[in-house]
């Protein structure tokens, strides 16, 4: 978070104005500071200044047992906590070499896709609000509220659920949740039509977004852009499709791809992703098997409460797991999942103890934000707000 940033204020063609934006600015979606170098109303250079939300998450993780880290990763990307959970538990499971029961896997996919929908909803609402369309936010928060209420029914928490565990889930979902999810999903496509009715053909929306913040496919790949922002530039790359994990290969869905790589295409891609996520959720609900939701491995997965209270082995396992955690064999893995923002990767190096030697999180927002300067160059100053919104950053994830 450097405060004194040196900016070259004079160029060959005359004086440039340096304008500070943020960190306390409503359109930066948190505490992002951008230093804009302007030639009249044209942006010559945009330099993001980050770190205001740095909490030393990776350092903290080195001092925690593997299960204690789960609520920690929730707090990186607070708009899609469960997908953060998923990437993390998949990485630890890979190191441990344990597999997860079918039902747990399916429930994970269902909850992650619902999370994706609510994350895109909050993105769309705030993005539209930034550009000046105030009413869409109210519609999107209505549906987001429905999803958060469902999450509350599952595990008591609405946002930071910390619901996934190494080896499965914390508990089974109530039957009422599955019924409620089915009802929500049945009505959701119509809601997306309403959002599109408000924006897609709206001439003001199109003028503010079409041809703005363009990045071509080659630059996007070189700058490490991922997720919907990359796909809007015409790169057909979705980890759920290309390197499937957690059983995504069993579901049918298409990956929307844009052509122009502007703010409007990034909008279209995310809108279509909400429809595709609904499709995946419906397939999960149809195929939902019964059975256990935790792997049967008492050295890693805590025993059922009844066993803790009635058997000596259960009590010992519970005690040891809660106090010491479980040891993970020495080694290193990198596991990436497709978060609503892009490639979310967890690199864990273990030295055989119950705490990671190093946990590095490759957060998509951090890397995507590097492209801001490229997208903003040559644009009007009013467009910077549209461009920041279209990258869909979450500052908790940028700064960690």
């Amino acid at each position: 978070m450097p405060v004194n940033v040196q900016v070259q204020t004079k160029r060959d063609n005359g004086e440039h104005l340096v304008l500070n934006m943020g960190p306390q600015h409503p359109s930066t979606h948190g505490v992002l500071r951008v230093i804009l170098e302007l030639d009249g109303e044209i942006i010559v250079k945009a330099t993001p200044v980050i770190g205001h939300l740095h909490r030393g998450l990776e350092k903290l993780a080195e001092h925690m047992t593997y299960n204690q880290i789960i609520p920690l990763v929730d707090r990186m990307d607070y708009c899609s906590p469960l997908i953060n959970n998923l990437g993390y538990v998949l990485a630890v499971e890979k190191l441990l070499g344990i597999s997860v029961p079918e039902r747990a896997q399916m429930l994970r996919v269902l909850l992650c896709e619902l999370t994706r929908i609510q994350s895109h909803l909050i993105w769309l609402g705030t993005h539209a609000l930034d550009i000046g369309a105030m009413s869409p936010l109210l519609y999107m928060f209505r549906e987001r509220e429905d999803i958060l209420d469902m999450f509350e029914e599952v595990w008591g928490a609405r946002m930071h659920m910390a619901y996934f565990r190494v080896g499965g889930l914390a508990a089974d979902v109530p039957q009422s949740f599955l019924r409620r999810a089915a009802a929500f999903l049945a009505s959701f496509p119509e809601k997306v039509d309403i959002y599109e009715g408000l924006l897609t053909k709206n001439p003001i929306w199109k003028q503010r977004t079409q041809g703005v913040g363009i990045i071509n496919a080659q630059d996007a790949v070189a700058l490490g852009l991922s997720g919907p922002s990359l796909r809007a530039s015409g790169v057909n790359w979705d980890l759920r499709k290309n390197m499937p994990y957690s059983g995504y290969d069993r579901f049918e869905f298409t990956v929307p791809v844009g052509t122009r790589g502007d703010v409007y295409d990034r909008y279209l891609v995310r809108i279509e992703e909400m429809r595709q996520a609904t499709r995946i959720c419906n397939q999960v609900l149809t195929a939902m098997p019964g059975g256990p939701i935790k792997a049967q491995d008492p050295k890693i997965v805590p025993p059922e409460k009844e066993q803790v209270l009635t058997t000596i082995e259960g009590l010992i396992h519970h005690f040891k797991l809660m106090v010491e955690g479980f040891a993970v064999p020495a080694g290193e893995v990198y596991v990436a999942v497709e978060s609503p923002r892009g490639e979310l990767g967890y690199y864990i190096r273990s030295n055989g103890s119950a705490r990671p030697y190093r946990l590095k999180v490759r957060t998509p927002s951090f890397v995507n934000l590097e492209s801001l300067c490229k997208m903003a160059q040559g644009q009007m100053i009013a467009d910077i707000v549209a461009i920041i919104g279209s990258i869909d950053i979450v500052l908790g994830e940028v700064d960690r």
Partner: protein
Amino acid sequence: MNDALRQNFGEKLLDIQEAYGEITIEVRPEDLLDIAARLRDEEVFKFVFLSDLTGIDCENGQFDVVYHLLSMQHQKRLRVKIRINESSAAPSVVSIWPTADWPEREAYDLLGISFDGHPNLKRLLTPDGFVGYPLRKDYPLKGEHPCR
């Protein structure tokens, strides 16, 4: 992939391992730029996407710098490692993968690893005037200085 790596880089590979279905190669810091450019450009590799770059404090003044590469064309990942010590610098790969800019600054900021040839190697996440490298193993969890 293993064979292609051996064929192309031969004795330049200090180590090649496959564990958990992930391939890791270790190379000398001085060979890194050459190998990285070939990994990006050659048809058998095409690792055009740098997923992640990070450092690890291996104690006793030793650091690993770890690169996670992704080949979208071949749908493969590769981990490249170099080992440096406290006084030496790693070569910057910004010229090969522009996305390395911030991750290298982050590694410099939190671990004190310097990168030769980086265009703007300054602290990224910690505040102005911050002293020390928080992700080093000898740095206390509660920090060395009281919060301002």
